């Protein structure tokens, strides 16, 4: 690992968020502060409803906080407008979801290509990128398959290819193995591990699975919206 491993890429300070139910305010995250270093594989654990997904969504720029700051690569994303956030996401974050969230009417190839349509790469360049990404997740032979023609594990691999196609610094994964059998889950974790160790990506993963958490360098425990630090 290179020296960049110690460089802080995400810096979260005093982050709070509450949902309003009627006149009541239900706190979900309370005064969260922590850093993520570049090239880190971080797992977020905690009981259901503890706010893991909410925290992940905040640092991926798809939800908005009440107070606090999230500085990623020098940009405080809590200060960005919706449109600016969309552009920022396209460049900086790759998403991996529990239910893969592939677009059913698009082939594996087209799903992976999707984020590139927002760039000004030529058709040929896009094709090359997509082919490389698909071969990385070992699915070159399934390029023309629709999601419904793929197994869960294969769909998740397509989703990973899609998440890394724009070469984002950070990958966020919300229970990426939550819907998979043990073998497929193992494949996915190996793949994510490879993204970190081989390609230097920073991965933040929410998981309930202790086996998945084992792969991580560090595990953060959330408990009712509060952080319990557990050093790696």
């Amino acid at each position, binding site marked *: 690992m290179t020296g960049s491993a110690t460089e802080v890429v995400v810096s979260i300070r005093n982050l709070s968020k509450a949902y309003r139910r009627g006149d009541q305010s239900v706190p979900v995250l309370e005064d969260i502060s922590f850093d993520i270093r570049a090239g880190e594989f971080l797992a977020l654990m905690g009981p259901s409803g503890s706010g893991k997904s*909410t925290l992940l*969504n905040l640092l*991926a720029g*798809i*939800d908005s906080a009440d107070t606090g700051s999230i500085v990623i690569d020098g940009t405080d994303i809590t200060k960005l407008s*919706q*449109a600016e956030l*969309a*552009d920022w*996401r*396209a*460049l900086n*974050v790759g*998403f991996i*979801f*529990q*239910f893969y*969230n592939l*677009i*059913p*009417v*698009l082939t594996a190839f087209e799903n992976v290509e*999707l*984020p590139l*349509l*927002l760039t000004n790469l030529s058709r040929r360049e896009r094709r090359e990128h997509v082919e490389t990404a698909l071969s990385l997740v070992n699915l070159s032979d399934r390029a023309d398959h629709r999601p419904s023609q793929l197994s869960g594990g294969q769909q998740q691999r397509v989703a990973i290819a*899609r998440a890394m196609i724009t070469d984002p610094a950070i990958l966020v994964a919300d229970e990426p193995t939550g*819907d998979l059998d043990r073998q497929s889950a193992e494949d996915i974790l190996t793949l994510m591990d490879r993204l970190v160790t081989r390609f230097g990506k920073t991965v933040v993963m929410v998981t309930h699975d202790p086996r998945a958490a084992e792969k991580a360098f560090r595990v953060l425990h959330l408990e009712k919206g509060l952080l319990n630090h557990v050093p790696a």
Partner: protein
Amino acid sequence: MFLLKFIFRNAFRHKLRTFLTVVGVAVAILAFGMLRTLVGLWYLGVETSSASRLVTRNAISLIFPLPISYEERIRQVSGVKSVSFGSWFGGIYINEKNFFANFAIDPKSYLDLYPEFVLSPAERLAFLRDRTGAVVGAKTAERFGWKVGDQVVLKGTIYPGQWEFVIRGIYHGARKNTDETQFFFHWDYLNETLKKTVPRQADEVGYYVIGVKNPDRAAEISKAVDALFQNSLAETLTETERAFQMSFVSMTDALMIAIQIVSYVVIVIIMVVAANTMAMTARERIAEYATMKSLGFGGTHIAIIVFGESLLITALGGVLGIGMTFPAAHWVETQLGQFFPVFDISPATIWLDFGAALLVGAVAAIFPTWRGYTIKVADGLRRIG
């Protein structure tokens, strides 16, 4: 274009749902187009009526006759070029279902006043020479397989008896919208028979048609004619042919307005149905739209996708509906020719049809488009699983 491809694939995702929606829109557009055409045709008689012809009828009601003696007196009025007359005969061919309009007319003056009924010179001459001769429009002739020389018997309703005629000519319309269903014969033939059988019905006509030299003087001439017969036993009402047609049409005005309302209601109904379908579709896809937004696609992209799909589906329905309108119009012409001799779908109606289809698509898409545009990624993703 990626968005286009995406819209197409989304539109045909639920084949049955899309198919049903397209058919629904198509049927609605078909109904809309047919109803609009029907209303338009109803008023067509008014629009194609000549401004240089006046019609004089009994002031009390159209069903009361006027004496034949009025002809000469009308001719004296300044500005009058020619005078003709006719009577609604109301004859039936075999049975009531075979309805067509038939009139007893003064042959020469009538044909002169109505140049839009085109006859060959030979047929015209043959008709004028034969007291029992008749001319019939090409549509009606075709309907009953009549040819020149055929004998036709009409059963009188207003004038009892079996009336025999010989077809001496088949007229064609000078314009596409000229009525080619009418049947004309000699008023003399009717009158001379009546003198022998029902003398009190003799020497009367249903209406006079007046050709004027200058259409701008129509109002003045009308007044002059009516003034002639003021305080007589049969007072007259003279108006332009257009106004005369209008008095027929206005009897059914309420019905036509109702049909017009129905044509709009049909569109509103399909709008609601399509809106429901689009809302259902959008709800199912909210997580997909949120996913695309998470990848960096903006609200505008999503809006285009949702809106485009709705427009695509309703446009297909519109095109299909318009496509079905032509065979339907042809069917009306062949099956209901006696009521609608020409059932022409005008270009304006086609544009209106297409516009209505797009309007349905646009309105149906408003709510789902707004949802897709504004949905927050985190909220949208939450809906999965």
